[in-house]
């Protein structure tokens, strides 16, 4: 027949397999809610309001003298740094003999709307560092900050340089005007004053919107197709769901903190110009004189390398290292590359200075 429709039998087979995978998925994988993301054993060493300081149990017989405090970002939760036993940032550092603490900022509620940068830097972070110094019997700590946590860590190091022996900034948000991501485009145009006055805390939905316009077709469509295609691959599925669960767990950001963040970093770009004030004190990045290790990802579409790298050039440190990795924002901290390359270099760098 002239009008006969010709369909490749392999296409039909693939379609049928794909449909079968969708039907079988609930039997094969756990629901994200059933998954526990904290994989490496730890104690909650210190708490203040909703903030928790986690202390990870050592995995080596001897450890570095100077402990490492990780200031996680204010966006999403800390779980991404310990997302999977084989891709855990924390576990890798423990295996290299580093004593690791991590700050979990918790999930702020309406009562926390007046918490600002001063509270996060000069109260919570400072108290966590004091606690670690006291517990470990050291005069100072190594401080690492990831993403927005990198900014908090840099501000802290500028204000309290004596407490920080080494500073590690992983994809920090530093020069807002140089950031070329869609997140910064939104941040530069939003009326943050009105948002905070009207709503209070930054609602998670606003963050979800920002995530949804980052590679919307790859992240919103293709990755789910690949998930169902690979539904029988236990490792793939486990890793996928862990990251998905982490992505979906976005707590609100305290209103005052969010306002200062957007205005001072993205809109007025005060930090890199040494014009930003926290707790009434002017922040000069030149006060950062301790050894600095800056890590940036070439393919970072949340914090572009141009936004992070200026920290390396703005500080007063003589001992400073800048590393660029061929990966993305999450790939830099939770991937095979981070295990083999990023963490090996970081561990070595820390050991030489601890």
């Amino acid at each position, binding site marked *: 027949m002239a009008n006969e429709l010709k369909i490749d039998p392999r*296409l039909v087979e693939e379609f049928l397999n794909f449909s079968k995978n969708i039907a079988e998925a609930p039997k094969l994988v756990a629901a994200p809610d059933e998954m526990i993301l904290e994989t490496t054993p730890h104690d909650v060493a210190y708490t203040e309001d909703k903030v928790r300081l986690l202390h990870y149990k050592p995995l080596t017989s001897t450890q570095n003298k100077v402990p490492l405090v990780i200031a996680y970002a204010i966006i999403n939760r800390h779980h991404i740094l310990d997302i999977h036993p084989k891709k855990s940032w924390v576990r890798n550092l423990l295996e290299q003999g580093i004593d690791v603490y991590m700050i979990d900022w918790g999930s702020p509620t309406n009562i926390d709307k007046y*918490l600002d940068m001063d509270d996060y830097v000069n109260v919570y972070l400072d108290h966590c560092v004091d606690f670690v110094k006291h517990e470990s019997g050291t005069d100072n700590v190594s401080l690492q900050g990831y993403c927005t946590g990198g900014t908090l860590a840099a501000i802290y190091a500028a204000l309290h340089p004596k407490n920080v022996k080494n500073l590690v900034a992983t994809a920090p948000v530093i020069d807002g005007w140089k950031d070329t991501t869609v997140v910064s485009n*939104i941040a*530069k145009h939003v*009326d943050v004053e009105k948002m905070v006055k*009207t709503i209070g805390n930054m609602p998670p939905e606003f963050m979800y919107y920002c995530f949804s*316009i980052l590679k919307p077709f790859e992240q919103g469509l293709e990755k789910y197709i690949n998930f169902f295609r690979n539904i029988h691959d236990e490792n793939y599925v486990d890793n996928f769901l862990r990251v998905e669960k982490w992505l979906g767990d976005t707590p609100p950001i305290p209103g005052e903190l969010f306002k200062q963040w957007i205005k001072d970093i993205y809109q007025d770009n005060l930090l890199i110009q040494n014009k930003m004030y926290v707790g009434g004190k002017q922040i000069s990045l030149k006060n950062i004189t301790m050894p600095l290790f800056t890590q940036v990802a070439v393919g970072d579409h949340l914090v572009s390398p141009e936004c992070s790298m200026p920290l390396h050039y703005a500080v007063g440190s003589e001992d400073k290292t800048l590393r660029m990795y061929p990966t993305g924002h999450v790939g830099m901290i939770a991937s095979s590359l981070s295990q083999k390359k990023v963490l090996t270099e970081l561990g070595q760098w820390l050991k030489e200075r601890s």
Partner: protein
Amino acid sequence: MKTEFNDPLSYYKHLTLFWTDLMYLMANKPASLLSAGPMRNFATNIKKISSEIIEANDDLVEFNTKFLDYYKQLSDTWSEAQKKVNEKIPAIPNDAERLETYKRIWIDIFETDFTELFDSGKFGENYGKLVASELELTKHWNNIMSVLLQSANLPNRDEIDDVYKQLHDLRRKVAKIESDLQQKGEQNGK
């Protein structure tokens, strides 16, 4: 006094306020007998609700304009991207990989075009205005809720915010006192 109106919206605004004012005045004296309780409060505050609804209508017009602009940006980008995909279709080999190749081309072109849109100043500007107009609507809703809560003798948002602010200040003071005490203790210990 005779009033004149240039547009239907102003007339509607006037009409609503006229009747709510008049009804309030007419009902005021008998209602004042019941000088306490939610209904009395509600009667006093009903005018505020009317005003908020009228102003919300104005802001809804603004919101709809920005919302249409927003969707126009998305649909224009979609059309342009689809045109580019259509131009590539004839070059796709007619084999078993055809569907996969088509998907790859489609995703690549759409990703590039939409990222370009989201990165652009015109998108950021309109999105900022869209969010601002949505927040204006939220503000009216908050104000209406405040009136209702006040009528029921319950704390409204501003009053709760005052409590949050005071709690925040107290938390800071307590943290500072604790820190000072700890430092003094350590100094004495030495």
